[in-house]
């Protein structure tokens, strides 16, 4: 799952395995151990539920008697520290996405992500809406997509089995292409964890994370400085509402100014059109008069209808302010 080595959450290797790989003559042994480790990991996929909406219900149903995902050794843990597979079941919104990223960073390696349901995969119906993330793979790397709206519990189980197959294939070296989207590399949040034997970690990143987590309200006694009722300390409530009223009025005034501007433009355009149409009509009339001097008077009716068409072509407003 390594991207390019920049994101240190993706380059973790177990120190014991690292040591063994460096010792001469133990390659055969390590490959056996590797197979054993993969067997263990793939048969004990503990899920950390990121269950937000409809799919969460089917996710819960997958743990119950009808399907019983515990048969393949999968149980649900509420803490990200003890999960192996994050199952994103449901729509992720803009408000929720930073939390998803944070919880994903809190999970220990090796870890996998399953996008369950069409909302998590692509946003589905809600893809174009201002508050919805168009697919969770823009936030965290996804290993398995389980399609459906919502997928049946059986489908989730099939997805997990597909993940097992992928893990085994990866261990054999058969499957190497990571399912990762380029947007993921641009994410600027980093894991809020300190790793053993990691000397090269930048302290600045850690500090930035810590500050960021404070702003999310995860640490500290922020209730002292944070507002109790939504207004900054020192501003009483009535004043706050007054400020909001002022803001709304300012907005309304701005809209009104825009409308006036548009009205002036409209009037100007209308006048220009009329002048143009009048000029055209006059030109036509002049031409017609010139022609009339030469031909019959019946041609004048046609000129009048042309002028009428020009007036009809005046642009209509789009019905809504921009």
């Amino acid at each position, binding site marked *: 799952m390594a991207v390019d080595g920049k994101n240190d959450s993706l380059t973790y290797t177990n120190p014991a395995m690292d040591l063994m790989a460096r010792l001469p003559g133990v390659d055969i042994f390590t490959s056996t151990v590797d197979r054993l480790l993969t*067997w263990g990991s793939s*048969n004990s996929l503990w899920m950390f539920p990121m269950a937000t909406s409809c799919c969460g219900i089917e996710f819960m149903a997958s743990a119950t008697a009808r399907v019983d995902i515990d048969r393949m*050794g999968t149980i649900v843990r*509420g803490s990200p520290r003890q999960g192996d597979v994050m199952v994103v079941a449901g729509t992720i919104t803009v408000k929720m996405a930073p939390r998803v990223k944070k919880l994903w960073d809190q999970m*220990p390696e090796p870890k996998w992500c399953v996008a369950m349901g069409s909302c998590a995969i692509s946003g589905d119906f809600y893809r174009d809406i201002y508050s919805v993330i168009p697919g969770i793979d823009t936030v965290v790397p996804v290993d398995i997509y389980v399609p459906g709206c919502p997928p049946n519990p059986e489908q989730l189980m099939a997805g997990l089995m597909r993940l097992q197959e992928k893990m085994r294939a990866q261990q054999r070296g058969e499957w190497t292409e990571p399912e990762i989207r380029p947007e993921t590399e641009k994410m600027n949040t980093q894991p809020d964890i300190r790793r053993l034997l990691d000397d090269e970690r930048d302290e600045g990143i850690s500090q930035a994370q*810590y500050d960021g987590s404070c702003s999310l309200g995860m640490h500290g006694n922020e209730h002292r400085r944070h507002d109790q009722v939504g207004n900054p300390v020192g501003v009483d409530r009535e004043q706050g509402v007054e400020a909001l009223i002022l803001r709304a009025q300012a907005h309304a005034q701005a809209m009104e100014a825009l409308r006036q501007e548009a009205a002036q433009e409209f009037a100007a355009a209308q006048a220009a059109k009329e002048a143009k149409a009048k000029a055209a009509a006059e030109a036509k009339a002049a031409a017609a008069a010139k022609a009339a001097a030469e031909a019959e008077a019946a041609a004048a009716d046609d000129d009048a209808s042309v002028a009428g068409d020009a007036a009809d072509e005046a642009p209509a407003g789009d019905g809504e302010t921009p």
Partner: protein
Amino acid sequence: MTDIMDQLLNHPLGRGVLLGGVLVGLMMGVGAFSTYLERKFAGRIQNRLGPTIVGPFGLFQVIADGIKMLRKEIIIPRAADPVLFLLAPIVAVTLTLASAAVIPFAEGMEPVVTSVGLLWLLAFSGLLVFPVWWAGWASNNKYALFGSMRAVAQGVSYEIPLVMAALVPVILAGSLDFGAIVAAQKGGAWFIWSNPVGAIAFIIFFLASLAEANRIPFDIPEAESELIAGPSVEYTGILWGMFPLAEYIHTFIASAVASLMFFGGWLGPGPDGLHWMALKTGALYLAVYWLRWSLVRFRSDQLMRFCWHWLVPISLALIVIATLWVHAGFGGSA
């Protein structure tokens, strides 16, 4: 061969190493296998199957889980206290194993021969409050802190009825030695029915040891629906795995001690021996599961009220009655 064994067993150091090794292996096996057993048992209670796919009857599930946990990354949170954080799970397992050292699974089969076995056991299981407290404190997580504070309050409170209920068989048998306590129950006179207080003392002892081991309905420190995982919420991989391991072993030891003190240990109808001890311990152990998967949990203040309003006065009364009973001449060997 038997001579060497005898010599080894009679030598204090050799005995400690040999039986200690067996004990550690056995307890680790019990702790690990318990997770499988519990998942199967819970599955049957809930009309499910539990693990079936990994290995025959899902038996290798435990091994897979263990390998998985060993492989997982160990994360120490940035704001955590690294020393206490690492120390807590290790100490938890060590203390639990140490408390198991005095339990005789058959006559004379305890790694540490001492005449105050019960005292040793109660002392070590009482110390178990500390690693849980450290874990919660060192994690620098509010949920963990809540869990550990609840654990401390609960552990310290339930220690009292636990010890006082354990004193009842001690008074009846007149000894702190497990061997002597079991010997006093010879001839079918198990303490649970050979006297008026045994049954109640057993219930109190059992409930208090459930509370000590944080099992439902007393599992408020690790309340999954409130505190996610309680003190162990920040632990990953094998460090986390040590907590449930210690908990399972602790529960197993509590079952073993209860069967020693109230059900005659290895005594039984027919030939005495290890099989009776295993049977009784196993039955009590499954009863713990049964309770766990059919009850909801107390609230912390209700838990405290239950302890101080009911268990402590009743166990005090039990001690008095047991003393009078022994004084009247009905008691055991003493």
